[in-house]
């Protein structure tokens, strides 16, 4: 990762020097090295841009506001999976690719701080990749673990090393390192499907009741780009309703899943940012699985400006009676 970062910084300098862009959305650490968030940088602080295994956050959504204003284009740094969200935002006219210079950067998998902590590693100061292992500097000395054991959920089911959008690639996709796929995407969904309706209801209730309504999932989700969310709009009648009782509050996530159905690229930001570790991505994946089964395989954001199956009609579409047979 260190040499990729060096290459990246060199490239960013070149793009600034050539006058292609005048600002860039990069990553910066917060109070701790693993508290990484996207942030806007300009010519003066390019060298502060981070790129390590904690740089999981999907930048695409920050381009909605970030691309507005500015004299030149804004530089976007897109990991392969970020490019799906990027395409989806183009499709929905939420970003104007004319105002953006999208640079595809390679990724070898991002890590989940919670999984590292679960290994009993604390006081983390820095992280370094060492082949298949991670070298973790801590207050108490250097620790090590297998990277595959601490990958983010989304990286376990990686969409692959290919970028599906962008103006330029930092290194060609074919030269980028292979990313191993460690799990089947729908395994967890299938487990939920196998449950009885009552079991499933109780399972989701137990998960969703952990929600503290911090709205982190919504704020991080690249599909949630409404100017005013229905939950922030008193006249929608929805916002007051979810505050009625704890069951209605659970509906927040159900409604959100419906709103992003057919548009969700399965980037996993919702689960990554959830401070209560609710596996929110499973709601979205259930929709993805159903859409794939009903309308044929569909990956939101695989290409820009296509009509997703939920907003297009064909004579081959399943009849609504499918609901009766599937339950």
């Amino acid at each position, binding site marked *: 990762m260190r040499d990729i970062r060096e290459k990246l910084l060199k490239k960013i300098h070149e793009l600034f020097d050539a006058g292609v862009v005048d600002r860039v959305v990069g990553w910066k650490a917060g109070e701790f090295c693993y508290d990484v968030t996207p942030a806007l940088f300009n010519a003066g602080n390019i060298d502060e841009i981070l790129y390590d295994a904690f740089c999981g956050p999907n930048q695409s959504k920050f381009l909605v506001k970030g691309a507005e204003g500015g004299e030149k284009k804004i530089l976007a740094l897109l990991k392969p999976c970020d490019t799906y969200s990027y395409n989806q935002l183009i499709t929905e*006219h939420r970003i104007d690719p004319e105002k953006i210079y999208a640079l595809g950067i390679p990724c070898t998998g991002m890590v989940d701080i919670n999984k590292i902590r679960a290994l009993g590693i604390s006081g983390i100061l820095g992280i370094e990749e060492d082949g298949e292992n991670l070298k973790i500097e801590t207050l108490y000395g250097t620790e090590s673990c297998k990277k595959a054991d601490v990958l983010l959920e989304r990286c376990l089911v990686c969409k692959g090393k290919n970028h599906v959008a962008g103006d330029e690639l930092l290194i060609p996709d074919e030269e980028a390192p292979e990313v191993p796929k460690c799990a089947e995407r729908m395994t967890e969904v299938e487990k939920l499907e196998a449950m009885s309706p009552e079991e499933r209801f109780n399972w989701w209730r137990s998960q969703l009741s952990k929600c503290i309504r911090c709205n982190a999932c919504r704020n991080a989700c690249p599909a949630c*780009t*409404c*100017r*005013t969310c229905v939950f922030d709009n008193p006249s*929608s009648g929805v916002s007051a309703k979810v505050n009625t009782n704890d069951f209605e509050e659970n509906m927040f996530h159900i409604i959100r899943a419906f709103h992003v159905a057919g548009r969700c690229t399965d980037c996993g930001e919702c689960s990554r940012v959830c401070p209560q570790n609710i596996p929110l991505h499973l709601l979205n994946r259930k929709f993805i699985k159903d859409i794939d089964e009903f309308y044929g395989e569909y990956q939101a954001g695989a290409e820009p400006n296509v*009509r997703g199956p939920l907003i297009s*009609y064909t004579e081959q579409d399943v009849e609504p009676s499918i609901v009766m047979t599937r339950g």
Partner: protein
Amino acid sequence: MQKIGVFVCWCGSNIAATVDVAAVAEALGKQPGVVYATDYQYMCSASGQNLIKDAIRDYGLTGVVICACSPRMHEATFRKTISSAGLNPYMLEIANIREQCSWIHKDREEATKKAITMGTAAIAKVQLNTPLTQMKSPVTKRALVIGGGIAGMQTALDIADAGFEVDIVEKKPTIGGKMAQLDKTFPTLDCSSCIVTPKMVDTAANEKITIFSYAEVENVTGFIGNFKATIKQKPRYVDAEKCTGCGLCTTKCPSKKSLNEFNMGLNTRTAIYIPFAQAVPLVATIDPDACIKLKTGKCGLCEKVCEAGAIDYAQKEELIEREYGAVVVATGYNQIKPVQYEEYLYNQSRDVVTSLEFERLMSASGPTAGHLQCPSTGKLPRHIVFIQCVGSRGTACREKPYCSKVCCMYTAKHAMLVKDHYPEVECTVFYIDVRTPGKNFDEFYRRAVEQYGVHYIKGMVGKVEQGDGCLKVQASDLLDNRQLHLEADMVVLAAAIEPDPSARKIGTMLTASMDTNDFFSEAHAKLRPVESPTAGVFLSGMCQGPKDIPETVSQASAAASKVIGVLSKDFLLSNPCIAHSDPTLCNGCSQCQNVCAYGAISYEDQMVVDKGVRETRRVAVVNEAICQGCGACTVTCPSGAMDLKGFASNQIMAEVDAICN
């Protein structure tokens, strides 16, 4: 707060027998906002309507809830009622406690409880109703008739007669339809061609009628008064303007092996062909699947012989856009190919034919010039067996559940014609029932039996086998309770009729509903038999169900009168329950535009002031003249910017809450 009146209808005993209407009125009378509640035997009657009007005046009602039948039945009636008492017609909600409650439940207590719940939901909704105003939309004074058979032609002629323009779109190279293929017509035995070909000529000669033959309707958008259709003109490879219909090309064409559709495939035609001598338009058409020039680039004989220089191998498909005020579906029917009925040997013996094929064999313009011959030997048959109900009135999956209606009569006709021309030929008809309800129909059938000596045997044929120089027919005689073994030279199958396969696509295009057999549904089986439930779409002929020629012509004229009713208006009042978008909430994602089936939503850059900030945004705009109020956009919009007047999201939520609480 609204002042709401609740009116619970008994619908005679339709509702009152299952629902305790007095209890419903009493319970709903206690709902917040309700100032008056009552029940009455027939709310839709004059005195029932007066009851509503009086209550509006006496209690100063601002909203009305009627618990009665489906809004499709009487919503319009009650809107007029409250309007005449000074209320806005859209301050009305109907709780359908008949179709959705009393008719489907048996338990009185449960049904009463449900009726109260439904009424409560309607009250919750009317609380949030706002007065709406209908807008006017202009009417395009031209009609589209899909199908150029007798139904389509009659409809077009009647509409044209009233002074309106009509386009007929016919997928075949000629108009005329199935009737042009018939030999004689029952019950008068007059020559079919002699009555249909003059109609074809009249249709073509009428200056108000434009015929698009060898063309298909590709797409229809819009709504009553304002339809837009895309017509696909298939290439004939012949310039229809130049072609004189002399037919010289057809005599020279070396590709002669194509089955002749007009003669039901009983003989062949050339690749360049005129369907029949009286075709309208009388223009040659090249079959691209058979033409040597189009397939290999070599030949071009027709081009050489054509004196008019009409041949054009480079002709391309053409898309024509036209606007209409009303659409008539007259897509007609086909007789099924009874290939699944192996017991009748249709696949194996040329002497087993369908009745439409027999019609061609009897016709003077047919492959045998009207001389009755066994297709296999060319000799006059000695005995013909007619089998009724092949594929009709069945319960097995290969069969149609319905009666094809015309078979009994045409079979009597066939037998009678055979006996008339060739008295020595024996005719035996196997039937389940003989159905002859029609003016002079039973007399006609009895003539076949009594005067012409046609044998009618109640019972079905079980098997047809190839015998030595004849067909062996095994059948049962149900009245005599015995098995019959007959020898016949020909077997004629009265195969079921089914809607033309093009009907399904057209039904989808027009959002006109169809039944399980793909016949078009009428708006009301008894009271609106020629209207589709989709406003501005009318039904003519067999596409709506099996019917004979006189019935088809009556329906065609009825459909025409309905069309004239639409076209004679300068403006139509449009439904005000349409979508609208809040520009401050719209995020420009275009999902609503994608789901809109009517193309009513477009996006434009607008100056928007949102939370004190002025900026230009790309937002959705609803074309109010095109929106049909289906609501697809409102449920697609994630930010809730789209809403539907009269069915606003908060109204629906209020209904759901009323039901759940």
